[in-house]
C-alpha cells in the first residue's frame, strides 16, 4: 500500500520534473531570442522593407519577409488543409474496412516525414523549372504545401483514429452519408486535435527555410501577385545571421521575435476558434 503511493508520488514528481525541465529548455530558446532580439527591435523592423545596406547595418526592416511569410505559410497551410483534412477523414471513414491498406498509406506518409526539407526544395525546383516557372510565391506555396501535407495528414489521422467506432455507427444509423459523417461529426468531434495538427504543420511551413530557398526566391519587395518572388522570415533571418555586421545578426533575433509573435497569433486564433466551436463536447471520447 505504502509502496504504491510512494510509486505514485515518485512518478508524479518525475513527470513534473521532466515537464519543468523540458519547458525550461523550450523557454530558454524563446528567452534567448527575446534577450538578443529586443534590443534590436524597432518600429522600422515591422514597417519597412530593407533599404540599401540593410544587410550592412543600415536602415530598413523586414516587412517584406513578414508579409511574404504570411502569404507563403498561410497559402501553403490553406492548400494543405484543403488536401489533408479530406484525406485524413477519408482514411478514417471510408477506409476503416481496409486496415491493411491503411497501414500502407500510413507507412508512405511516415516516410515523407523523413524527407529533408531541402529535398522537397530540390523537388519543387525541378517541378518549377519543368513548368517554366521562376522562383515565385506560387512555386513556394506549392512546395511548402507538399512538404507539410504528410505532417498534417498523419497528425490529423492519429487524432481521428481515437474516435470511437460507436460514433460512426450513430451517425450512419441516422442515415448520414459518409461525407456528412466525416465533416459534420468526425471533424467536429476531433476539432481541437485537428487544430493542433494544422498548427504543427503551419509551424513547419513558416519556419523551414530550406524548401523555400529554392522555390520562393527572395526579394526586398512585397509580392503583388503569385508569380513574383517573395521574401520569407526564415530566409531573411538566415541572411541576416550570415552578415558580417554584429548589429545585423542581432536584428535576426528581432526578426525571430516577429516570427514568434506571428505564430503566437496564429496559435491563439486557431485554438480560440476551435474551443468556440467545440464547447459542446466534453473532453475524452467515449
Amino acid at each position: 500500500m505504502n509502496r504504491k503511493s510512494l510509486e505514485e508520488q515518485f512518478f508524479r514528481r518525475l513527470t513534473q520534473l521532466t515537464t519543468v525541465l523540458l519547458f525550461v529548455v523550450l523557454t530558454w530558446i524563446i528567452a534567448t531570442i527575446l534577450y538578443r532580439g529586443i534590443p534590436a527591435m524597432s518600429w522600422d523592423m515591422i514597417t519597412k522593407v530593407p533599404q540599401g545596406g540593410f544587410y550592412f547595418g543600415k536602415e530598413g526592416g523586414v516587412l517584406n519577409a513578414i508579409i511574404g511569410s504570411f502569404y507563403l505559410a498561410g497559402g501553403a497551410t490553406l492548400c494543405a488543409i484543403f488536401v489533408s483534412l479530406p484525406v485524413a477523414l477519408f482514411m478514417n471513414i471510408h477506409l476503416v474496412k481496409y486496415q491493411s491498406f491503411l497501414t500502407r498509406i500510413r507507412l508512405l506518409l511516415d516516410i515523407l516525414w523523413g524527407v529533408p526539407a531541402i529535398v522537397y526544395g530540390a523537388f519543387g525546383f525541378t517541378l518549377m523549372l519543368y513548368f517554366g516557372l521562376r522562383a515565385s510565391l506560387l512555386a513556394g506555396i506549392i512546395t511548402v504545401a507538399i512538404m507539410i501535407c504528410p505532417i498534417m495528414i498523419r497528425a490529423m489521422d492519429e487524432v481521428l483514429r481515437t474516435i470511437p467506432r460507436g460514433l460512426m455507427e450513430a451517425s450512419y444509423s441516422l442515415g448520414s452519408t459518409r461525407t456528412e459523417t466525416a465533416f459534420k461529426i468526425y471533424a467536429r468531434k476531433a476539432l481541437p486535435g485537428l487544430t493542433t495538427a494544422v498548427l504543427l504543420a503551419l509551424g513547419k511551413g513558416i519556419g523551414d527555410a530550406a524548401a523555400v530557398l529554392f522555390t520562393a526566391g527572395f526579394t526586398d519587395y512585397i509580392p503583388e501577385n503569385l508569380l513574383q518572388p517573395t521574401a520569407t522570415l526564415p530566409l531573411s533571418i538566415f541572411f541576416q545571421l550570415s552578415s558580417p555586421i554584429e548589429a545585423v545578426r542581432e536584428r535576426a533575433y528581432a526578426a525571430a521575435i516577429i516570427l514568434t509573435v506571428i505564430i503566437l497569433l496564429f496559435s491563439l486564433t486557431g485554438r480560440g476558434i476551435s474551443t468556440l466551436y467545440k464547447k459542446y463536447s466534453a473532453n475524452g471520447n467515449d
Partner: protein
Amino acid sequence: SSSDKQGQQTEGETVRVAISGAFALYPLVTVWAEEFNKTHPNIQFDIQAGGAGKGMADVLSGATDVGMFSRTIAQAEKDQGVWWVAVTKDAVLPTISSENPYLPELHRQGVTHQELSSIWLSENEPSWNEIVDLGSSGNETITVFTRSDASGAAEVFATYLGAHQEDLNGVGVMGDPGLAEAVRKDQLSVGYNNTIYVYDVETGEKNPGIDVIPLDLNANGVIDEDEAFYDNFDSILKAVGSGKYPSPPARELYLITNGEPEKQAVISFIEWVLTDGQEFVRPSGYVPLDESYVQDQLTKLQD
C-alpha cells in the same frame, strides 16, 4: 517602403532582375542594387544569398539572371557556357582567437605556407609548438576548424594550400560567422575567414575576440616589415589591392550569367558596377579593382 520605390518610377515598364549566389558578395550587391536603383528606378532586384554553387546552379538553369560567385570557375562550369566578370576582390585570412596564449609569438613569427598545410592537410593534428617556436611549452594540439558548407572562401583557402575544400581537415562549421564564432571561443583553435568577418567595417579594427595569423611569406621565421599589414582593415585591403597579400587566398569575386548577358537591365547594371559602383566597394569592406583591370572587364562586356 516599396511604394516609395515605385513612386520614383518615371518611365518604362518595371523589369525584375533576379540575383543569387555567394554569401561573400551578398551584402555588397544589395548596396549596389540600392544605389543603382536611385538612377534606374524601374529595375527591381530580387537578391538572395545561398552560396556560390547555388548561384552557379541557378544561373545555369535559368532560375536567376545573375549569379554571385566567389571562387575560381571550374572547367566543368565553363564548359556549360557560363560567362563571368570580376567585380571586386577580397581575401581569406587564417584566424585565431585573440585569447590564444601564444599570440605574441605567432604575431612575431607568423606561419609559413608549409606550416599551414600541415595544420589543415595532415591527418594527425599538429601541436602548437610544431607550428611556432615556443621552447618547452605549447604541446597542446591545435583545434582545427574548417567550413562545412561548400564555399568560395574554403575553396580559395584550400587552393592556396594546394588542395581542395574536401581535403581540409578539421571540425566543420557552417558559414563565415559560425567559423569566426567557433575560433573566438576556442583559445587553441585555428580557422579562416573572409576579411569582413575579421575587421569591423566602420572602425577598421579587428572584431573583438578574433585575431589573424600573419603569413610568413618568405619563410624566414619572422614577420618582416612588409609582411605586417594586418593591423587594420585599410592596411589589409591595401595589401590585397597591391598584391602583397598573395592571391589565393585573396580572390576575385564575380558576377556570372548564363552565356553573355542579353537583358539590357543586366548589362547596364554590370557596367555601372564596374564604373560608378566601384566607389561603394571600399566603404563596404571590399577591395576595388584596379583601373586597368576594370577596363579589361568592361571590354569583355562590350563585345
